[in-house]
């Protein structure tokens, strides 16, 4: 791929990922109680830690999304999203393994069931973030 096309793909990936995570983060930030319930449904974190996670995760999503759009910060934003995708993937796999029938908590009130499609979506987003985190594409 020539450098111009590579830059265009990287920019398109960054805008797509930023849009998705900005939307997801804002939805969760607007309704922290509902997101805390969604986290609690996974039964992975001790109850005492659920609220803190519900406050921090949307902020990381929003900050990472915004960072993707700032040239010198793109790779940092991509790394945070990559980490979040890894955590979400592990949580959904764990829920599926335990037979839990729960909302994934991905997009606030627009949540969908935590299922195999959720894992595929998560993998796709993670791959996009990995692409942007590489030195030659991130622009840092």
């Amino acid at each position: 791929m020539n450098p111009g096309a590579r830059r265009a793909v990287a920019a398109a990936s960054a805008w797509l990922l930023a849009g998705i995570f900005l939307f997801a983060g804002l939805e969760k930030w607007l309704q922290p109680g509902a997101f805390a319930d969604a986290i609690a449904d996974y039964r992975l974190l001790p109850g005492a830690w659920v609220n803190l996670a519900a406050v921090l995760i949307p902020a990381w999503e929003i900050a990472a999304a915004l960072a993707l759009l700032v040239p010198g910060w793109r790779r940092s934003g991509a790394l945070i999203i990559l980490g979040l995708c890894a955590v979400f993937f592990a949580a959904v796999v764990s829920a599926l393994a335990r037979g839990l029938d729960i909302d994934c908590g991905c997009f606030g009130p627009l949540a969908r069931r935590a299922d195999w499609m959720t894992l595929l979506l998560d993998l796709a987003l993670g791959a996009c973030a990995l692409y942007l985190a590489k030195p030659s594409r991130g622009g840092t």
Partner: protein
Amino acid sequence: MTRPRLFSASSLLGQTLLLAAVASGAALLANQLRPHGLAWRGPEFRAIALAEMTTLVLSGQAQLVDARPTAEFAAGHVAGALNLPEEEKTLALQRVFRQLPEDQLLIVYCRGPECQASLRLARFLAQNGVPASRLAVFQPGWEALQAQTALPLATGAAP
């Protein structure tokens, strides 16, 4: 001049940690300032075993709360259990405060080990003034209660 690779990697890591730290700080501050921010520490509930629950219920020290939908409750429940479906949470709150003695432990159950209604109802009650220490969740749920023999079972809608 090209920067050494190691320096570049540590710089990226530092920048990423800085971004996460600033976002965390902003989130904690915003949560503190917003009108209905979350408590830092979420509620934790006792996971109660069948034997202890049976003793507490039979001695009157605990009240069972059935979080399943009304139709499922009518098809079968532990005699004396209060039906507070998750869909009627606000009503549930009023009933807990008006009808139940304050010294009773509230043991919430739903369909079975995989259901979420009991934990969600307990969280709702805890966030609305019921002390978490007064709440317990029996996660094995109705599936386990059906198989036990000590607690009397009943059918029919809640009074």
